[in-house]
């Protein structure tokens, strides 16, 4: 079973490496959106520091949403999804492996580049850790929740718009808590409470979202 899960992750990473434009699109989108704000708002350091957590978090949320529809679409189109559904491994586990691979491709790069972008906002350097941690805990939750939506809207015409409508309300709590953590760090409150909450959300999502997405996949491939 572990061999199958490793195989799924390895395959998805290999595909992403051979088709790197998909990965770069998401990353570039994130970088551009975040970089435009200091240009548009003006160079007032106090203002930039105030909006930094929100801007970075909203951009990360939009970027990860941009990548969502790709999670199952190509497997669905070429028939690989049928083979995954008929696989020897419980579907929930395989879906969890796919979500992990998807986060490594589309979420982790955002986390890694965020400290560089935060510098544009005069984000206090010693508090960068909290921002990175909040994104590292939060973006997997976005991928996990998004997987359910991506599975539900698989193969629908205009699925992209529906996906955003379905998922956005569920993303809002993650956004509020995640941006809240970074904001608390900027104002000197620490942000531990929000980080703990994000961690709890992540554990909860890992436990349930893959199974929900698996059921959704079975329904939408019928």
């Amino acid at each position: 079973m572990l061999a199958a899960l490793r195989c799924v992750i390895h395959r998805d990473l290999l595909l992403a490496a051979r088709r790197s434009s998909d990965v770069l699109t998401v990353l570039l989108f994130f970088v551009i959106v975040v970089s435009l704000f200091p240009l548009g708002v003006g160079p007032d350091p106090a203002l930039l520091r105030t909006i930094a957590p929100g801007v970075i978090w909203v951009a990360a949320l939009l970027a990860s949403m941009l990548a969502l529809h790709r999670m199952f679409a190509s497997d669905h189109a070429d028939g690989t999804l049928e083979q995954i559904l008929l696989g020897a491994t419980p579907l929930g586990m395989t879906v969890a492996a796919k979500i992990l691979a998807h986060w490594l491709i589309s979420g982790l790069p955002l986390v890694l580049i965020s400290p560089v972008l935060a510098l544009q906002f005069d984000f206090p350097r010693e508090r960068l850790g909290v921002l990175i941690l909040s994104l590292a805990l939060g973006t997997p939750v976005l991928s996990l929740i998004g997987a359910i939506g991506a599975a539900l809207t698989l193969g629908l015409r205009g699925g992209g718009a529906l996906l955003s409508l379905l998922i956005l309300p569920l993303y809002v709590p993650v956004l509020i808590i995640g941006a809240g953590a970074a904001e608390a760090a900027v104002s000197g409150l620490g942000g531990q409470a929000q980080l703990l909450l994000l961690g709890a959300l992540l554990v909860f999502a890992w436990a349930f979202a893959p199974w929900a997405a698996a059921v959704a996949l079975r329904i939408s491939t019928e």
Partner: protein
Amino acid sequence: MEKKTGTPSLEAVDLHCVRGERRLFGALSFTLRGGELLRIAGDNGSGKTSLLRIACGLLEATSGEVFWAGEDIRRLHEEFWRQLVYIGHANAIKDDLTAAENLHVACTLAGVRTQPARISEALRLLGLAGCGHLPARALSQGQRRRTALARLALSEAMPLWILDEPFAALDAVAVEQVQNLIAEHLSRGAAVILTTHLEAKITASAVRRIDLEAT
């Protein structure tokens, strides 16, 4: 491995299938034992693929049940799928992976352990010697189909094969090769279901046929 007597049987009881408004087939029952070949015939759109998808549990029949070794496949889940090879209309081939990588992924997902040597042997058997390292994008339609079917050469231990139009896009040599693979598998005591437009020349202890227009 599975002996003739040990191969479980696939039993469909009173299957009805309605897709959209159209009734594709109804009151369809069959039993398939080890060593038997079931050929499903019918015009385009007569529900051949739907029947295969119901038989392997991808699609829920409007009513009726499918049993594997006496158990409902909807309860067996992975236990049933671990013993099944399904090759559908779509080849499940990734353009960006090589033929060998595609084959490795397909086998690993199905729980079949393979070595690189066996994979190149399977590709060679299907006339793809030397194509193993090419990205699937560079392969022709027929070669992709061959890559998908090369899985059969690595799945001797699976007691049930369900093949949807296995001979589509294949040339005469490859058709014969695949027919040999199927005949060999049947002689091992496994069961095979397939749909095809060709009059397949496969030797089996029992060849059965379901004509979907007739039901």
